[in-house]
């Protein structure tokens, strides 16, 4: 347990010093939020509702990005630089190495959520009942698990270039098709069909439902759980294959 805490602490320290993390996970979502709620106002009927809705979109966007990209690319980097091999010959168990990353990342995500929520409050005066603030934050933390698992799949790549290219493409298309940038309703119906089955849409949808006063739908929970299992199996499968080689 002590080992896990020490390892998580180190991971948090490293993330907080990572310029890409600060830029992609904090500055970008806040800037987007500002642009789409203050500059390009969409003229939706209920702007207060939209401001809260889009705040959730951008928070999910941030956490999803850091789960896929920060985790995935760093796993590749650490392997490419030989750190994974080095850690294997120390007494540090592999589970603590991964566990430390997950815990460290989750605590940093909590920090990101607080920062972005605060930005929403400061920029648009978004106000929600405490239960909804806390509920949506918890949903976002829990819902990030499938994306962390996807990050570990990205982490099996040998080269940093391929990993960062693929994760960027995945991240941006998941965000767009999942309705994080603009609501799915205004997209062509065939895109909406695809989006409906993506984990990013279920992820966002849970948060949108919570701040609208509802409870996340069972379908979204099951879909996210299925993706989590799928990505974990895929990641384990690839890792075992690579170990045999």
């Amino acid at each position, binding site marked *: 347990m*002590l*080992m896990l805490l*020490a*390892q998580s602490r*180190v991971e948090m*320290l*490293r*993330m907080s*010093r*990572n310029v890409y993390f600060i830029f992609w996970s904090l500055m970008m979502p806040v800037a987007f939020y500002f642009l789409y709620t203050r500059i390009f106002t969409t003229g939706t009927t209920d702007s207060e509702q939209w401001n809260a809705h889009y705040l959730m979109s951008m928070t999910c966007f941030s956490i999803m990005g850091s789960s896929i990209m920060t985790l995935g690319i760093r796993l590749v*980097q*650490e392997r490419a*630089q*030989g*750190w994974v*091999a*080095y850690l*294997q*010959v*120390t*007494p*540090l168990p592999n589970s603590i190495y991964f566990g430390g990353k997950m815990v460290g990342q989750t605590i940093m995500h909590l920090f990101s959520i607080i920062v972005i929520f605060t930005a929403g409050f400061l920029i648009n005066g978004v106000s929600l009942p405490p239960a909804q603030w806390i509920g949506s934050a918890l949903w976002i933390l829990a819902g990030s698990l499938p994306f962390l698992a996807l990050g570990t799949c990205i982490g099996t790549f040998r080269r940093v270039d391929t990993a960062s290219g693929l994760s960027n493409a995945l991240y941006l298309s998941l965000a767009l098709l999942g309705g994080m940038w603009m609501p799915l309703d205004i997209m062509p119906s065939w895109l909406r069909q695809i989006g409906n089955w993506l984990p990013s849409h279920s992820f966002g949808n849970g948060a949108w439902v919570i701040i609208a006063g509802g409870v996340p739908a069972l379908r979204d929970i099951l879909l996210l759980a299925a993706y989590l299992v799928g990505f974990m199996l895929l990641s384990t499968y690839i890792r075992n294959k690579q170990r045999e080689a």
Partner: protein
Amino acid sequence: MSSPVIKLEQVSKRYGNKEVVNNISLEIKRGSVVAILGPNGAGKTTTMKMMLGLSTATSGLVTVMGQKPNHKQVRQKTGVMLQDVSVMDGLTVREIIRMVRSYYPAPLHADHIEELTGLPPADLNKRAEKLSGGQKRSLNFALAMAGNPDILFFDEPTVGLDSETRRHFWERVRQLAQEGKTVIFTTHYLHEADQAADRIILFNRGTIVADGTPGNIKAGITIRTISFSITHSMFANDDVSITGMAAEADVRAQIEDLPDVDGIEYHKDRCILHTKNTDVLLRHLIERRIPVSDIRIETGQLDDAYANLMDTLKEEI
């Protein structure tokens, strides 16, 4: 003391159908400094990786301290410096040392590890990725020591180091040996194996071709030569007389008559005799009063011997 710390029994490693290590067996005693020597692709690093549990043997058994190499108790007592390992980014030298110490049950004191890096105090608060290549290696050496290990593995430890850092490194290794630690390193620098190790295991094409003390290895495969000038030039003045010519032919005949000579080379006036026993040959040379001068006895360095060995190996295949 008596039981070996590392034991390999009929170990082979295949990648696909390529045999990288072919049925090797060896034992390493506690407190020895062992060099695994060989050219690139000889199977040195693969063998070390199997000792470390980073690679599993296709067949055969590898045990370290009587256990599997990846056993936790083994990990806690080994220190490793691998090839191509950089430093963890985003952390200062101090933070990395603190992190790695936390992995071991009885680590060295942090001050001691900091001292082992050989870095000036100002650099200890620097981000590790900003260190120079040599400094990173020094940090990795210190990290290998962090758990106060009994066995140390160094894979090509001095590649890319300048001569100063290299000397410093071997000094440390000698210290470790004095403290009774077992040190195993791979190298293709022959003089390093010769100077630092008390045992050399010579690898070629996945097999052990020689195993012994540096002295033994050298004696077994060294060329010893006696060379001298043929003194017929004393007789032959400006005009090359027939007697001079005859004298030279006579001397040559006497030389060719010497026992225990493995080979004769003539270079201008100098004659070089190859032999396994220079002492006996020298006695014959003098007792038979063969008119030679400027006698030199030479023993090939390990480098020569090694090149020689590698050449003969190539010829066999």
